[in-house]
């Protein structure tokens, strides 16, 4: 009876469990997670802080998920080290968990730059449920917050804090917010709304020092920006990004770059050892190379692929790419792939911008195939465009139609639909 061991029980771990059970109903599965209740949705932790979701709603799988799938769930337990030659994981208190197939799905951890004063009470990172609970517990007595980083996490936590009535200053090193996923036009559309919600946005800056309160130096009192400006605050949230949690691999010969290197079956270079999710560098079909893409849906898919392969069902990872949908500040946005190309010889951009309706659509092409999609406010046809993108369809004859208001499935010639949607449109 195969013994599957999965370290990490968030998106990739859950995906792997479900895939293994599809193929192998009886093989024993042990899941090790340092979180007590890991089957919650990490992208939703800002909803817990804002009050939009309670703990129950945060659960992306039922409470009996582990039991139902006959999993030995070692929750609240940390994996300390790996012995890949003798195939076991050492956990807290020195116990050993033996495996035949191992999945490393330890995820990412927040990147925390060195900032003087970051040890003070009131400084938070924002990745896990306990981060969110910790932050939420401080809100009743807090009036002002500084959020460092205006990426996805920074914007999500800023919205939550605004909803809870705090005054927020968002500090971003780049010139625009969400600069990794949006071009300047789209970014400014969001910035406008965020400012209207009362947020102060300080771009081109970061926090160089966190000071305590006059009456208690151990508690956050203000943040000093690189400009020298002092911003009064009770809380600082560090939301710069995540980096792979690869410490567990110390002393092993598993190859890593920034994350763990995997092939299209999610295997590492060591046999019977797999990796998935934010800890792994998986294939990006737009860039044509493996890279870090710390995104929940991709982690789930990577975990699933790993699970199938671990259980003996040979499955290729089709690849992913940067893909985000945003709901914050009531402006729906979808951003996929290369949305802000700098090389205008190589890339062509199709743009439709209607400021009066707050509509923005931008499709980036390379050799007449879609490599980037940005949709602001009118996002409903995103899936068809993404499907064209994934399939590398030559859209030369469809160019202007792609960004028109009327674009829909019927816009695609029937022969193309037949090819793209097997079983439909016969």
């Amino acid at each position, binding site marked *: 009876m195969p013994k599957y061991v999965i370290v990490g029980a968030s998106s990739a771990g859950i*995906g792997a469990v479900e895939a293994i059970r599809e193929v192998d109903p009886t093989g024993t599965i042990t899941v090790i997670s340092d979180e007590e209740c890991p089957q919650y*949705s990490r*992208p*939703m932790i800002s*909803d817990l802080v804002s009050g*939009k*979701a309670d703990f129950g*709603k945060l*659960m*992306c*799988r039922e409470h009996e998920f582990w039991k139902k799938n006959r999993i030995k769930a070692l929750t609240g337990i940390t994996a300390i080290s790996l012995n890949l030659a003798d195939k076991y994981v050492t956990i807290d208190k020195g116990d050993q968990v033996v495996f035949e197939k191992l999945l490393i799905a330890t995820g990412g951890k927040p990147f925390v730059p060195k900032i003087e004063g970051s040890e003070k009470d009131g400084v938070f990172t924002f990745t896990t449920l306990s981060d969110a609970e910790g932050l939420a517990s401080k809100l009743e007595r807090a009036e002002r917050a500084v959020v460092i980083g205006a990426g996805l996490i920074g914007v999500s936590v800023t919205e939550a804090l605004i909803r809870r009535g705090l005054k927020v200053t968002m500090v971003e090193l780049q010139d625009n917010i969400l600069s990794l996923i949006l071009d300047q036009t789209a970014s400014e559309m969001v910035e406008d709304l965020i400012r209207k919600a009362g947020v102060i946005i300080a771009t081109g800056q970061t926090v160089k020092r966190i000071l305590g309160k006059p009456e208690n130096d151990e508690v956050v009192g203000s943040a000093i920006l690189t400009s020298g400006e002092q911003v009064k605050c009770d809380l600082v949230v560090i939301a710069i990004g995540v980096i792979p949690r690869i410490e567990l691999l110390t002393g092993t010969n598993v190859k890593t770059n920034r994350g763990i290197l995997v092939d299209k079956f999610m295997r590492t270079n060591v046999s019977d050892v797999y990796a998935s999710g934010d800890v792994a560098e998986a294939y990006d079909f737009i860039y044509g190379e493996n890279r870090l893409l710390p995104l*929940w*849906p991709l982690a*789930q*898919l990577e975990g*699933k692929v790993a699970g199938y392969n671990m259980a003996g069902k040979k499955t290729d990872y089709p690849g992913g790419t940067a*893909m985000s*949908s*945003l*709901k914050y500040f*009531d402006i*729906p946005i*979808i951003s*996929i792939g290369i949305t802000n190309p700098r090389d205008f010889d190589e890339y062509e951009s199709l743009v439709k911008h209607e400021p009066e309706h707050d509509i923005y659509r931008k499709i980036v092409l390379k050799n007449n195939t879609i490599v980037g999609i940005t949709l602001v406010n009118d*996002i*409903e*046809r*995103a*899936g*068809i465009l*993404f*499907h064209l993108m994934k399939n590398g369809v030559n859209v030369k004859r469809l160019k202007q139609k792609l960004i028109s208001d*009327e674009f*829909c*499935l*019927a*816009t695609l010639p*029937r022969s193309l639909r037949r090819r*793209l*949607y097997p079983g*439909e*449109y016969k």
Partner: protein
Amino acid sequence: MKRIIVKEEHCIGCGLCEVYCTVQHSKSKDIIKAYNRENPRPISRVKLEVHKPVSFAIQCRHCEDAPCVAACLSGAMKKDDETGLVTHNSEQCIGCWTCIMVCPFSAIKMDSSGKVVSKCDLCTELEIPACVANCPNGALLYKEVKS
């Protein structure tokens, strides 16, 4: 299991599928009340896609390997093991729009509240889904398909 089959050569683009879907998913189940009085206004979960002269209806295909289920952040979108249906629980939905991003048919919509998504549930309480039953030209069929 039974699925909706689309015969685009029979579609006349009348939009009755959308009307009857809207009514079926309204509180009153009454066409006038559904369109004029209900708030939030019910929406059609089937979409009539038109690029003249082509038209056809599209609704959730209840995909075998549903991308929306795999991508769902909240666990609201699920694949029912027994019926094979892709089900959506709007209580659990947080309106993150990830399913809209990954549905290759763009068959998932924001509902009129703008807070959650909405999609075809195959009218499980009816023998024949409302859009199929009310298509005047046989452009929508409800047929047994191989799983």
